[in-house]
Each structure stands twice: as structure tokens, then as C-alpha cells.
């Protein structure tokens, strides 16, 4: 019970921290995804206008725009930015406090991640409401919406684990943001966040299906769009990856903490 209180308090603190500088939060978390959506809206409108064709690889303009609006929702719900402080904690020597607190490093950052996800649920809920009102999202039934949110939250767990792993690399690396940016770049390109995977060359798409990337954006979008998606495939591909990354993170932490020299003490 006392542990639950610690989790809840940390989640509350994390929410307060993320929302303390609201303009900064908007510019850092929501702004980039909105600009990305704006560019894609203009790009695809221009492409469809230029070709004069009704469909490109099975997508009408409306379907393409819907795809990208859902891509915005997925990016907000599934791909958080919570590992920055984690690497800084290690580099600045702040993890010394976690070593003596009755609430460890992993618990603290996971609670912060949950706090971030709670904010993002509200932000995304408001965005979906707004997009529906202005008519750029077709109506979606509640079970489909809940399935999509559920899938996104599972992806967010995997994404957090990946970010956690890059964060604990700070024991060895001067800068871990490079790894985070690389991860983000690869994911955006290979997960169907910029263009739907149907537009990729066939051989490339077939290779991609053996990687976790399509499941990070493309699959959740398809769930939101109400298309037939194999949940069994989704979970059977992503779960082993999630376990693998978590195990590597735990081992990395264990090795890293032996190197730690408490620079901040």
C-alpha cells in the first residue's frame, strides 16, 4: 500500500513538472507533431491535385488525410519523450539519491512516464474531439477507439523501454540524445509515420514486417481506421521485443551502476 502511495505521488509530481511550463510543453511535445501533420496535409493535397488520380495505392485523398490524422494521435499516445531526464540524472550524478531512497531509479522514471501518459491521454482526447468537430476525422465507434488507444499504450510501453535503454547508456556515453534522435528518425521513417507502408517498395516492406517498426505506427493507425488487423501478430511480435529490451535495460543498469562515480556528490 505504501508503495502505491509513492507511485501515485511520483505520478502527480511528474504531471506538475510536465505542465509547469505550458508553452514549453506545447512547443516541445505537441507542436512538432502538429507541424508534421500540417506538412503532410499540404503535401498529400498537392500530390492528389497534381496527379488527377482518385487513388494512390488504394488511398483516396480523404483516406490518406485520415491516415495522417491518426498518425498524429499515435505519435502523441505512443511515442513519448521521457528519457531526457533519465540520462541527465546519470550524467549529473543525481542518481545517488535514488540509491538511498526507498523508491528506485526504474520506479521513479516509470511513474514519471505514467504521469506523462496521463497528460497525453487528455491532450489526445481533446485533439480527437477537435479533429472530429472540424470534420477531418470520420466518426469512429467507441470499441474501435478504445482498441486503438489500448494498442497505442502497449506501443508506448515498448517505446519507453527503448528510451530507458538509451538513457542508461549514459553510464558509457557522453551524449545519449544522439541515440534517442537516431531512434526517433529510424522509427518515423520505417514505421509508416511519413508515408503509408503500402507506398514503400514491395521487397522493403516485406523486410520491414520482420522488424517491430510497422507495429509502432502503421498497425495502430490501421486499428484506429477500423481495418482488419491481427492483434495476435501485433502482440506476438512486439511482446518479445518488449521483454528483450527490458532485460537488456536491466543488465545495462546493473553493469553501469558498477561504473558510477557519483559526480554530483
Amino acid at each position, binding site marked *: 500500500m505504501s508503495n502505491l502511495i509513492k507511485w501515485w505521488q511520483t505520478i502527480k509530481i511528474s504531471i506538475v513538472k510536465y505542465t509547469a*511550463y505550458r*508553452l*514549453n*510543453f*506545447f*512547443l*516541445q511535445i505537441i*507542436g*512538432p507533431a502538429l*507541424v*508534421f501533420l500540417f*506538412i503532410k496535409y*499540404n*503535401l498529400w*493535397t*498537392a*500530390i492528389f*491535385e*497534381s*496527379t488527377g488520380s482518385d487513388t*494512390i*495505392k488504394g488511398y483516396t485523398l480523404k483516406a490518406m488525410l485520415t491516415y495522417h490524422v491518426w498518425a498524429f494521435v499515435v505519435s502523441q499516445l505512443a511515442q513519448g519523450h521521457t528519457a531526457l531526464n533519465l540520462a541527465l540524472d546519470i550524467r549529473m550524478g543525481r542518481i545517488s539519491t535514488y540509491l538511498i531512497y526507498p523508491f528506485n531509479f526504474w520506479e521513479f522514471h516509470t511513474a514519471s512516464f505514467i504521469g506523462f501518459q496521463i497528460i497525453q491521454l487528455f491532450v489526445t482526447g481533446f485533439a480527437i474531439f477537435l479533429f472530429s468537430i472540424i470534420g477531418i476525422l470520420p466518426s469512429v465507434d467507441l470499441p474501435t477507439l478504445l482498441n486503438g488507444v489500448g494498442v497505442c499504450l502497449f506501443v508506448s510501453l515498448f517505446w519507453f523501454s527503448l528510451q530507458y535503454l538509451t538513457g542508461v547508456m549514459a553510464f*558509457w*556515453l*557522453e*551524449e545519449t540524445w*544522439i*541515440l534517442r*534522435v*537516431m531512434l526517433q*528518425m*529510424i522509427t*518515423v*521513417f520505417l514505421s509508416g509515420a*511519413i*508515408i503509408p507502408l503500402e*507506398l*514503400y*517498395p514491395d521487397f522493403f516492406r516485406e523486410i520491414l514486417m520482420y522488424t517491430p517498426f510497422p507495429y509502432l505506427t502503421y498497425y495502430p493507425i490501421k486499428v484506429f481506421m477500423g481495418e482488419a488487423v491481427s492483434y495476435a501478430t501485433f502482440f506476438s511480435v512486439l511482446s518479445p521485443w518488449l521483454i528483450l529490451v527490458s532485460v537488456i535495460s536491466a543488465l545495462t543498469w546493473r553493469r553501469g551502476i558498477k561504473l558510477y562515480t557519483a559526480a554530483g556528490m
Partner: protein
Amino acid sequence: MSFSSEIKHYLSVYKKFISTSTAVAMSFRTSFVLMVMMDLMFFGSAYFTVDFIFDHVDMVMGWNRNQFMLFLSYVLLVDGFHMIILSQNFWRFSDDLKSGQLDYTILRPLSSIFSVFFRNVRPSSIPTLIPAIVVFSYYANINNFSLFQWLLVPLLLILSLALLAVVEFVISCAMFWLVEGVGINFFRMQMQQLSRWPDLIYGAATKRVFSTLVPILLVGSAPIHFLLDMSKWHYLLLMVVATGVFWFILLKLWERGLQVYDSASS
């Protein structure tokens, strides 16, 4: 100090900036290699995104694959130089404002704008220039560039970089008034994102706003419009005027910013 000796002085300082930045970059070799990989990945993802799109369409708003790729490679070249000369400094600026480190910059007998935005050079981005130059040359060749067009390219690159820099400097001035400047850096990067696509894809209102009020679309689109059709010289005029106007705005904002700057370290 005469103008020429002042230039010499600034160049000698800049030489020191380059050598110290290179020494710092080389002392963390893994980070250096990762940064090279990161920049190459960025190049690859930008290139293949457009390539994949053109597998399904012949033209986008009047530009074919070769013209679009010429634009893209030009923007990536500007981006490469931007990464080397400027990118690091914006992040350092937001940190320095928060930590009070800006005090030491202001005290130097140099222009504080120069010290803030040109202090850190990123040599790890130099390798990215190689594929950017190769791809640009390839598509310039396909688009039948004359000798005159080739000669214009370096000048246009300098103009594009100057415009991009001055717009970003102005945006960065907002950090003086905010407690946390990281968000402004993300906003600045989003402006760059907008400029990585040709103005042709945007609607009339967007094009107008981002070619005049915040002239970020001119950075890549204006030189390519001009290189592909020399009669469109007004694009260059717009770029020069925009750079001048934004330089003036920067000087005013910087002065005001320094007045409100409240050193965190004192």
C-alpha cells in the same frame, strides 16, 4: 578599428572556435561516430521519403522527380552547412540563459550575437556534405545546369544559410523572455521542417505568411525557382530584402533581450 582589421579579428577568433570545437568533438569519439551516423540517417530518410513518393506519381505541382530532387538535395546541403556552423549553438544558448553562463559571453570584447551563435562548430556533420554534394551535382547535371548556374550555387547557398540563420536567431530571442528555452528550439526546428518542402505544396495563405512574415519558405524554394527559371529573379530580391529586414529585427530584439536578461549566476 578599421572594417578590414575588424574582419581579420573576427576571423582569427572564429579559427579558435573551430579548433576548440574540433578538439572537444574528437575527445568523445563514440559520440562523434554516432553523430555522423545520425546525420547520414537523416539524409537517407529525407531522400528516400521523396523517392518513394515519386515511385507513384510523375509530378507534384508542376515539378517532376528531377526538379523535386534538385530542391531536396539543395535543402539538404543548406542543412548540412547549418548543422556544421550553427545547430549546436541554439541549444547551448538556451542552457547558457538558464545557467547564467551568458554573463561570460556578454563580457567578451566581441559582438555577443557572434559569440552566442558561432561559438560551437560541429565537425561531425562534415561527412553529410559528401552525399549532399554528390546528389545535388547529379540532379543539377540532369537539369542541364549551365556554367553560370553552377557558379551561382555557392552564392545562393550563402544567401540561403544567411536567411535561415537570421530567422532562427530572431526566433531564439524569445528565449530571453521564457524560463525554459528548449520549446523555442523545437519551434525553430519546426520552421526548418516547413522549409524542407517546396513552397509549391502549400496553400496560398501559408505560402504568403511563410514567404513574407516568417520567410522560411524562401530558404530552399527561392533559389531553386531561380535556378530552374532565371526569369524569376524576384525570388532572390525577396531573399535579400528578407535577410536585411530580419537582421534589423534581430539587432533590436537582441538589445531588448539583453536588457531583460537576468543573470542566473549572480
